[in-house]
């Protein structure tokens, strides 16, 4: 274990209370705006004090509210990539990367050499004398990454490193970032609000909501078993809370769902994919155990599928083909019957 922290920080409307341990791995902090993700990174970098708790790295305390320990940011072996990179606009790319080496007392010549070797690693050797303003978003991100990594930090912090990029460049840059993150030693934390970024870049995901850890695990696990509306929305699942008894879940918001699993009882979460929902104009006679009639609320056409909101006893989203949507003439207000097979419904303890 490298990073071990228990942080309490109140800042305006935010009340951050996070316990987190990170080893030799990439951890994504996933959460909505205002959840406290950036504040968490700033606390770890020493840019924000803690009200309570402690931060230690490799067993060395950096922050301890009880013992009055506080290591100033300049003395922490961290590398931080800020959301809009914050490259110094008046320095060249090479000077930017040499800056952390120079400020730690290394002679100019050697700092320059180390900057150059990192420039080569991020494929920017030919832009060494450019000013940050002349770089593309992807190049600026690589410079920011090189600048954060050149001093070989034990803790690498990345704040939304892909947010400033346009969609076209994103996929390629994300792949490259994954390579650099995988090669970097130490604990690596990446803040994002994008589930795909989290699953591509990180070994493990921590979901942060309202200043609290809402869920932890691999992205695949989190995506299968969301424990909050936020995560369910993010991965596009229908999600409900309810109480299970003998194969039926009574939802907190009203309505019942029949599930295949008879062993789970008590407070549960229920999730199923919109693909698992079939729509028809009359009650079907098939095997689907769950049938709800309701009115279509909205119809969103994507490339190869149509997402349909249905408001009935159990409000849900369904995904159908464009052909099916046409055949059923789905449009807001249209009465339909939504049916879901019990075997398609995942139920797990809350």
């Amino acid at each position, binding site marked *: 274990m490298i990073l071990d922290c228990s942080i309490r920080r109140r800042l305006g409307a935010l009340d951050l209370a996070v316990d987190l341990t990170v080893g030799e791995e990439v951890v994504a902090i996933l959460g909505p705006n205002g959840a406290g993700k950036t504040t968490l990174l700033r606390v770890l970098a*020493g840019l924000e004090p803690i009200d309570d708790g402690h931060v230690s790295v490799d067993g060395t305390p950096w922050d301890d509210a009880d013992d009055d320990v506080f290591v100033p*940011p*300049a*003395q*922490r072996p961290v590398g931080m990539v*800020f959301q809009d990179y914050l490259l*110094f606009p*008046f320095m060249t790319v090479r000077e930017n990367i040499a800056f952390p080496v120079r*400020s730690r007392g290394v002679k100019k010549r050697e700092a320059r050499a180390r900057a150059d070797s990192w420039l080569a690693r991020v494929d920017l050797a030919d832009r060494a004398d450019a000013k940050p303003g002349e770089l593309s978003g992807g190049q600026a991100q690589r410079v920011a990454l090189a*600048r954060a990594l050149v001093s070989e930090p034990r803790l690498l912090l990345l704040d939304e490193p892909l947010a400033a990029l346009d969609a076209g460049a994103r996929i390629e840059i994300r792949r490259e970032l994954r390579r650099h993150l995988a090669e970097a030693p130490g604990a690596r934390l990446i803040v994002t609000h994008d589930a795909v970024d989290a699953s591509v870049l990180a070994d493990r995901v921590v979901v942060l909501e309202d200043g609290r850890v809402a869920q932890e695990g691999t992205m695949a696990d989190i995506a299968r078993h969301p424990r909050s509306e936020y995560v369910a929305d993010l991965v596009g699942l229908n999600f409900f809370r309810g109480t299970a008894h003998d194969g039926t879940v009574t939802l907190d918001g009203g309505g019942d769902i029949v599930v295949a699993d008879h062993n789970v009882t008590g407070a549960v979460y229920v999730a199923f994919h919109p693909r698992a929902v079939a729509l028809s104009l009359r009650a079907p006679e098939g095997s689907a155990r769950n049938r709800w009639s309701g009115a279509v609320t909205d119809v969103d056409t994507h490339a190869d599928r149509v997402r349909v909101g249905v408001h009935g006893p159990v409000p849900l989203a369904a995904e159908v083909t464009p052909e099916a949507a046409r055949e059923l003439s789905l449009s807001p207000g249209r009465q339909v019957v939504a049916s879901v097979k019990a075997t398609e419904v995942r139920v797990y303890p809350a």
Partner: protein
Amino acid sequence: MFVLPLVGLLWKAAWSSLWDDLKTPAARDALRLSLECSLWSTALAVILGVPLAWVLARGTFPGRPLVRALVLLPMVIPPVVGGVALLYAFGRSNGLVGPWLYDTFGLQLTFSKTGVILAETFVAMPFLVITVEGGLRSIDTRYEDAAATLGAGRFTTFRRVTLRLLAPSLIAGIALAWARALGEFGATITFAGNIQGRTQTTPLAVYLLLETQPAAAIALSLVLLAVSIVVLVSLRDRWFGIGR
């Protein structure tokens, strides 16, 4: 209304004898003294004004609006009044701290070069403070955060990042303060007097020479005008938003 006085000045100027007019002892002394005193007072304004601007921009203390108002006061009060105020603060016989300064350090500010510098600093420093404060406020402090995470201590961060980001405002503030110090008249003549070679700066000399040697007065005026224009032109980008 703005142009006519300038035209008048240029029209009256004896261009052929301009150089000779500037070489008269009175004019030469005045120019040398003006240059020396205005540079000293600008330096003083930087040394005192930058920390003051820092406190006003970054500090959080209850009396801040009041302090800012006091700092900016010399910009709006009539310079003569400023001179009178200086006189009753630093005057050798009747000032608040003047007698003490003289008895303890043998320092006399009235009717001395130091007095000129003090008077010029008094009126010029607010220009520097307000410009630098504005510059400090417009700096994205996250650059300083970034520097800190990159291992730069407070001083290194200030020197290599803050100061660099502040440079345009600082240069503008210096130019404005210097131009104001160079043209200072009221406070100087009231507080430091009008002694050729000691406290008679260029504006004072212009006023005096207008009676006896109008050609020299006009020549000196042209020098001051030229300096003002140079300052204005060099600051145009910042002040009028051209080319930014």
